Each structure stands twice: as C-alpha cells, then as structure tokens.
C-alpha cells in the first residue's frame, strides 16, 4: 500500500495488490470437479466451509444433483460456525490494528481454537477442510457430534459476550471508530460492497435472505444492520452476526435428520452437462460467487471467482483520503480483507 501523506493527513492511498496471485481461477480448469474443492479452501482461508459451500452448490446446480437433507444440515452448521470463527479472527486482528496489545487477539483466538479443534474432529484438518462434495459431504459426522457442538457453542457464546465487553463499550474504541470512514448506502452499492461492510450502511441485504440458497429459508435469524456505515457499525454488525450464527446452528442442530449424506447414483468421474451458472453465497466477508461454465467434460471449462474482499478493498481509497495515517490502518482492518481472496 503506497500512502502519500501531508504531515499526519492522508492525501492519497494506492493499494498495491497481486502479490498473492496463485492462479486459483485458472488452475481448477485443469482439475476434476472434485479436485477443485481444495482450491476454494485456499481462496478464502478463513471461511473455507463457506467457499466450499458456494462451489459445491454451483456444481450441483449445473449437474442437477440434489444433496440429501442431512448433508445440507451439516453444511449449514459448519458454514455458520466457520462464519463465527472468521469474525472472531476479525476481532482479534482488528484489536491489534487499533493498538490493543493482543488482548482481543487472545480472547478471540481462544474461541477460534475451540472451533478449529471441533472442525478437526470432523474433517481431520484444521484449515483446509476439503469436506464438502458435490452431492453431499465426504463422510458422516462423528458419533458425539451433537454433544460436542453444544459444548463448543456454549464456549463461543461466552467468548462473544466477553469480546463485546472488551471492545464495544471501550472509550478509546468508541472515540476512534465512531464516525470514521462513513459510507452512505448509495456509495456502498456503487462500490460493490457486500457483507458486513454493506449492512453497516443500514441496507438489509443478506444473500441468505435475499435469495436463500441451500436450506437457509428454514431458519429464523435477524439481519443486523448499522446506522451510519462507519467503522464502529461494522464491528457491531459482525458481533451481532456471530450471535445470529449461533442461533442458526442451534436451530439446525435441533432439526438435523438422520439419513444418507451423499446423493445416490453419482459416478466416480463427475461429468457435468454443458451449461453455465453463477452461484453466490454470503461469506463472512460478503458476496462470494463462483461462475462455472461446463462443456460436458469432467473439468470446468471456465471457472471464475468473485471475491468479496476485492470489491470491498476497492473502496479503501475513497474511505481513507482526508483521514489520519493511524485511521487508514483501522479502516483497512475494518474491511477485513483476506489477501488470498483479493488476488486469488
């Protein structure tokens, strides 16, 4: 990031991106449909289940596969817990950006570790889960899933309340974040913001509600919105989203049926009929989309990813110019970018 400053005031901001480009859009075009899932883990490495969910749903939509009920519930539970983990990571990193010597980091990471351990028990991996499959999930949950999930939720709920107490009523956080880098609803839409960034401006737009994918239409949850689109509202929205995710997981856990976890009659090599589709999900950072074009072979012909971080980052210059140097850091922090998703 190249910063032009006049004393302590920022004159110009130029985010230099591209250093994390690994061809995550081109490489999958040479891979089997099931091999691509791993690349989505690595696109947004903090919201792996959400990105996997998006890709898997896209393939299912294109191939006309219907995943069984139980698999859908598993996906929703894991994706929502992943959203909590990602937002916890945000609060940890944001505390460090604003100068809170690691306290929020430790608080947030304690609970993120709990969730990661939980994911490891299910998928065998801590970060790159590679668990969802077109047509279901890779294998069934462990026997003690229900009990463990309740445990983790209880710990996370406590952790969210503690973070709330540490950050949200903190005088310095209030003084620093309120009114900083305000974005109006109109500007937010024009810049292509999505996720908590957009909801902080007061717009009630959540893809889980706007165009319910998977089984999100069955759950009861609120869409938290901010009032003036500043950094503080982004914090509030993210904190409240964690609470709503807990609600969704609790409901899904109640209703989760027994049954198969994989659709019937899938071949070893998945050949998808020719066609194209665009699937988008609400990832913790915003709208994560996958555009797939198939020509009937076992590999996607075109595979394009829309990263929420990239669009959100594009507003950085407009939000930062005229502010103080130290504010640019927390504005950048409040966007919650994942550079892998920016560059792909």
């Amino acid at each position, binding site marked *: 990031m190249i910063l032009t400053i006049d004393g302590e005031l920022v004159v110009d901001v130029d985010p230099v991106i591209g250093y994390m480009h690994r061809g995550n859009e081109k490489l999958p075009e040479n891979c089997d449909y099931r091999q691509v899932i791993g690349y989505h883990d690595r696109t947004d490495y903090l919201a792996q289940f959400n990105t996997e969910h998006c890709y898997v749903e896209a393939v299912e939509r294109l191939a006309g596969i219907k995943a069984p009920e139980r698999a859908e519930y598993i996906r929703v539970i894991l994706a929502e817990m992943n959203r909590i983990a990602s937002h916890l990571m945000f609060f940890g990193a944001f505390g*460090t950006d*604003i100068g809170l010597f690691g306290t929020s980091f430790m608080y947030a990471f304690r609970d993120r570790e709990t969730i990661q351990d939980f994911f490891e028990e299910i998928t065998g991996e801590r970060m790159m889960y590679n668990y969802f499959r077109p047509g279901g999930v890779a294998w069934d949950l462990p026997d003690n899933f229900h009990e463990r999930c309740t445990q983790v939720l209880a710990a996370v709920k406590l952790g969210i309340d503690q973070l709330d107490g540490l950050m949200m009523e903190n005088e310095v956080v209030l*003084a*620093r974040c*309120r*009114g*900083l880098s305000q974005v109006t609803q109109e500007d937010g839409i024009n810049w292509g913001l999505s996720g908590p960034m957009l909801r902080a401006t007061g717009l009630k737009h959540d893809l889980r509600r706007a165009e319910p994918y998977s089984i999100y239409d069955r759950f009861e949850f609120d869409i938290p919105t901010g009032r003036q689109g*500043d950094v503080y509202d982004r914090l509030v929205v993210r904190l409240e989203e964690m609470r709503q995710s807990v609600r969704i997981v609790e409901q899904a856990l109640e209703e989760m049926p027994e049954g198969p976890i994989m659709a019937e009659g899938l071949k070893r090599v998945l050949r998808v009929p020719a066609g194209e589709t665009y699937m988008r999900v609400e990832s913790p950072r915003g709208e994560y989309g996958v555009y797939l074009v198939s020509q009937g072979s076992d590999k996607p012909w075109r595979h394009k990813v829309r990263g929420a971080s990239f669009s959100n980052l594009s507003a950085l210059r407009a939000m930062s110019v005229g502010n103080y*140097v130290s504010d640019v850091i927390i504005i950048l922090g409040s966007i919650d970018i994942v550079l892998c998703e920016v560059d792909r």
Partner: protein
Amino acid sequence: MFLAFVSDNPWLEAMARLGIIALLVPVGVIMLTWVERKVIGRLQMRLGPMRVGPYGLLQGFADTIKLLTKEDVRPDTADRWTFELAPFVIVVPVIMALVALPFTADLFVSNLTLGLFYIVAVSGLSIVGFVMAGWGSDNKYALLGAVRAAAQLISYEIPLVMAVLAVAMLPQSLNLAEIVTGQEDTPNIAYQSLAFLIFAISGTAELYRPPFDIPVAESEVVGGPTVEYSGIRWSMFQLGEFVSMVIISILGSLIFLGGWQWPWSMFDQSVPVAGQVVTMLAKTSLFIFFFMWVRVSLPRLRIDQMMSFCWQLLLPFAFLQIIINGLVLVYDWPNETLVLLSGAAAAGALYLTYRAARMSGVRYQPGYQQVGSVL
C-alpha cells in the same frame, strides 16, 4: 543509618549510594520486563514466559544476553553521531532523575531542596534523545514517530507539572521528603484526587504507554524512533522506558500515596526501615500494575484526540486544581473542602471524558471528516 560504615566520609557515602543505584537499575529493569510480560500474560489468559528458569524468572536475563551479543547495526545513510548518541541522551537524564528520588526516609542518593523541580526538569530532557533518534535514523517511520513524540511529550509535560505543582502547594515545599512528611495523617490522594487523576494520565502519556503509545505505535510507525536500532542501543531505549516508568511510579507514590508512611499514622513515626521499604514497594507496584493493566485494556488514541484531550481537558482541570488549592490556602478553609472540591472536579473530568468518547463521531456531516473530535 544503614550505610553507617561509610557515613563518616561524605564522598565514600555518595559513591556507595550511587553504586547501589547503578546496580539496582539494570537488575530491576530486567526483572520488571519479566513482571510486565507475566502480568500481561495473565491478563490475556496466557502463562507468559515459562521456559527459562522456574516460572520463566530468568527470561529477562536471557533476553539481556541476547541483546548484548547482537550486532549493533547502523544504517549507511544514518547521521552517525546523532544516531549513536541518541540512546545515551535518553538514558542519562533518566538515571539523573533517579538520583534525586528518595525511596525511603534514608534510602536516597541526594535529598535536594528543589527535588521535585529537578526531577520534572531533568526527565523532560529525554525528548531530545527521541528527536535525535528519529532524525538520525534517516527513516520515515522514525521521523514520523519522533515528531509525534515531541508533540506528545511537550504537551503532556504541562498538565503533569501543573498537577505536581498543585500537590506541592499544600506542604509549600518542593522537597520530596517534606511532601511525604506532610502526608502523615492522610495521603494527598484524598485531598488532590483531581491532581492524581491528571498525574496518572499524563504520566502514562509521558511514558509512551498505551493508550498514548502513538509515537511508538507498532501498527502505524513500526516502533517509531527505535525502528533502526538493534542490540545494545535498542535495549538502552528499553532501559530508559522502564526506568522512567519506575520514576513516575515512585514519584506518584511519594507525592500522592504518602510515600513510605503507613496511611492514617497507623504505626506513627516509628516505621522500621524494612517496613518503609515494603510500603514503598507496594505503593510503587500499584502504579506499575496500573500502567500494565491499562496497556492490555485500552487501544491507541489518534494523535489529534491525544492532543485535544491534553489541551482541552487535562490542562484546564489542572489549573482548576491549582485554583482550588489557592482558595483553600488563602481563605484557610478546612481540608475537608479540598476533598469535596477536588473530588467533584475529578468526577466532572471523568464524566466529560465518558461523554466525549460517546459523543464523538455521532454529529457527522457526510463528505467532511471532523478534525479534533474528542470534545
């Protein structure tokens, strides 16, 4: 008393007292780094250092050895003399201030008549070192940090001095031992709660500790003036920082908490030396713990908020405390008035801060960024 064996020769005695300081300072600082890491660790649900020695007690010594054996790097483009002298300019005034600071009734190097004045004057010098380091490093982060440091230190020096001055009005002396003797009944914190508040806040700012670590902000100017330093020179900055913290803590316990005396004359005047040391250590530790506690619970202020907080809130209230003291002294009102007036003013200052933090940024016009929006 405890130095009876050398006390017949004033030169020998002075050397012995200086020697004790020179020995205590590095060891004390090394242990203080361990204490700080341990306290912060516990406050953040970690263990802190645990590997070197029992409970990581020797961690500080291991770090010192590492720092001493590290290569002393100087950037090619750095201004040689400015760069290399800067750490000394920081450490020397700090040690000089320590010389005039009585720890107990007998444990001091020199009891100056103008002790308070001397300490405040000398500890203000270290800003020169920071500016030298920032300028000499030929590094934009260092320079930005140095400019911030200069602005901050000069600003917060004023409320700090005013708060200290208000306290000195009561015993009408600048001699630290006399100020302590004046508190044999009730510590000054009861009469001067406003001055205490201002002292604690501007003391934190003088030490560049959070929430006032703007000049050395890790996420903004990557360490500020110290960014180009390594090894022994960098550890001298650390030494200066920690000794300053001890000085502010000792000064605070002397002038506000009654120094080595037990509160409310519980043990009248005959407190033994060991008791004095323990009392003083406890009171100093309270201050040090306060600084560490604040460090883990408050994020960093913005530079304009830091400045407006000083000039708009701390400074007027510091003058208010002096006016209150003046009125009470001139009209000979009872001391209880002082408790009431100062307490009310302190509550007012706290309320203003509380309100300012919650009001900031709410009255905002789109397209225009408010500057100096703390109050």
